[in-house]
């Protein structure tokens, strides 16, 4: 079974005008990647190498300077219903209750009220927040808010999830619990995901493949296939003896030891 490609970058370059010094800043250069249906791919690289820039182009919010981005074979020129993104900030709207926040995307896409509410409550139950549906965001902890943000992302039933360091603002324990939830949900629903992270263990525990980027201008310098079973169970996966090997490999690629010396 040849899996279909869901998200594809073809020789994508992004330049930003640099008004101070004139000329351009090349954020990413010649990036090509393809993510198959149901695959979870992590993207790691030094700070400022253009990871978020790639994700923004994938969501259709920012155009590529050259090259093309495709979702399900279709050229991405503007935001579309198949892609949803999630950031480090939960971006919950303070004037909406949690369930209303979860409904935001569906509301924008004009899903009928009854169906919308049912789906939102369903997802809140799956994200283990059913009792907080009618609370306001300020009444929730950081971890709970991020769960709500995940429910909001899933509510529009996207085929591709783009996540920019979704758990990096959480404490270590909460993070592991949310990784577990996300890993299971992604496996259950068969969604395709591109996950940006600085957490090497998270990258190994969550993904089928890891793409490593270079310093700016960002290029993809290495692709690592994570050959550990139980992708739907990150908690078990992170205890696997092979994890350390992958971490060492990633540290070498990112030249972390040299940077510290």
């Amino acid at each position, binding site marked *: 079974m040849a899996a279909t490609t869901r998200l594809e970058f073809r020789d994508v370059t992004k330049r930003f005008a640099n008004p101070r010094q004139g000329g351009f800043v090349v954020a990413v250069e010649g990036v090509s990647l393809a993510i198959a249906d149901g695959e979870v791919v992590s993207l790691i690289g030094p700070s400022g190498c253009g990871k978020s820039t790639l994700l923004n182009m994938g*969501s*259709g*919010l920012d155009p590529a300077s050259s090259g093309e981005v495709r979702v399900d074979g279709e050229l991405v020129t*503007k*935001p*579309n*219903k198949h*892609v*949803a*993104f999630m*950031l480090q*900030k939960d*971006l919950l*709207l*303070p*004037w*909406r*209750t949690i369930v209303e926040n979860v409904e*935001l*995307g569906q*509301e*924008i*896409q004009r899903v009928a009220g009854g169906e919308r509410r049912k789906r939102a409550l369903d997802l809140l139950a799956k994200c283990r927040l059913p009792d907080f549906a009618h609370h*306001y965001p*300020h009444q929730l902890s950081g971890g709970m808010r991020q769960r709500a943000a995940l429910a909001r992302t899933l509510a*529009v039933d996207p085929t591709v999830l783009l996540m920019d360091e979704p758990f990096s603002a959480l404490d270590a324990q909460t993070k592991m619990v949310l990784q577990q939830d996300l890993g299971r949900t992604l496996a259950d629903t068969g969604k395709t995901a591109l996950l940006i992270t600085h957490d090497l263990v998270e990258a190994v525990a969550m993904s089928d493949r890891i793409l490593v980027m270079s310093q700016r201008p960002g290029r993809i310098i290495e692709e690592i296939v994570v050959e550990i079973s139980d992708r739907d169970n990150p908690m078990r996966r992170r205890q696997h003896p092979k994890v350390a090997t992958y971490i060492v490999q990633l540290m070498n690629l990112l030249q972390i030891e040299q940077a510290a010396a």
Partner: protein
Amino acid sequence: MSKTGSLAMQPGVRKMMAGSALLFVAFLAAWQWGPGLFGIPAFIIPPVSLVWEQFLHMMAHDHLLFHTGITAMQVGVGFVLGVLLGILCGFALGMSPSAEFVLSPYILALQIAPKVAFAPLFIIWFGYTVYPKILVCVLIVFFPVMINVLGAVRALDPDIVRLARSFTANRLQVFWKIEFPAALPPLFAGLRIAATLAVIGVLVGELVGGNIGLGYMLAFAEGAGDTAAVFVTIIMLTLIGIALYGIVVAIEGRVLHYLPARARLAT
């Protein structure tokens, strides 16, 4: 939704309310007998009983209610128009940085200019009608509202707008679902300020010219040296202001009910 019901039940709150009632009685007593105690004559500070009598007299013979109504109407119309204009301009400028850049020196100049000084000008333009008074009110109400809305649009986290756009929101949806509700808390802060200023705008217009409204009564009482009537007029003006402020606070309580208690301004 509202928590005021349970609030009134609390013994601490009841004690505070009793305290402020007591203070009010003490204030009235001091007003009644205080001036006499210090030998201040009634034409400087009339005792409260005299002011009350004057109030009844003005109600019966001087159409006090009519003049109060005129002033209140002008305050209401001026306030609503000024607020709408302020909201409109606040959003328009907030969404168009280039327009704000071009217009900001003029806005700043107009903001610094004492708005009440425009009253004579407006009277030259529109004569002794209600329009100059309403116009001064509009002008004075406009700024705090516009500045607050503008600031709110500017302060909005662009990532929230990007989130909405990633859900394929169009411009109108971004406005109604994100920008407008996000601007409401600062808007209400601006409305509170505007409510306290609105009466000043109308009053100055009335003082400068015309023969109706509380401003006219105030000028008339001053000419007649009728201190008690001056007091009555000041009190009526204050009551209009309090009523407007009360309405703003009541609406705010309904609209911004989602804010955590500590973020809501104490009334």
